[in-house]
């Protein structure tokens, strides 16, 4: 999941925004979002039989 989030965040970050710092920030944000949503969904589904 981390690898998936990292690869997607690299491309999303490179495609979006104008400046390098904005790209870094956006890439990190996308990475964090993928990780948080993945973990939350994982725990939610864990309790659903």
């Amino acid at each position, binding site marked *: 999941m981390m690898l998936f989030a990292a*690869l*997607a965040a*690299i*491309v*999303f970050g490179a*495609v979006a925004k104008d400046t390098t710092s904005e790209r870094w920030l956006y890439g990190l944000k996308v990475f964090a979002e993928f990780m948080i949503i993945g973990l939350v969904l994982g725990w939610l589904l864990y309790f659903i039989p």
Partner: protein
Amino acid sequence: MVKVERAVSGPAAQPAGVAWLIAIGAWFVPGVGHLWLKRWGRALLMGGAVWASFLVGLAMGGHMFSLSTGQGSSPLLQIPPMIANMGSGLPYLFCLLFGIGFSDNPEQAARATYEYGNTFLLIAGLLNYLTVLDAFDIAVGRKP
């Protein structure tokens, strides 16, 4: 007073035909579009991400889609994931030609990483579509 004019940074826009060629090249071999435009960093990052995703997906035993892998269902259901897989370009065509990653054997499907592999293979193609659009935008001068 001296008037100072600052040149607009960024490459000159390519002719439309060349921009389309760059887009086709970017689709065919992930990263080549940005290499053509001398965007080394982007080529390495974006092309590298696509290649890494594709190779990891294959190594995990993922399965790619084509119209012939119906598994008893309608071949039309294979079209959306096939379009995603086809985004990888040459790697997809190479695997299709040599039958790598297209077989439907139960041993492969039983691997714990099978579904992860599928996802990585799908994402590789979809990320490459983004890479193609980015290369095209740079080529036509829409993006610095």
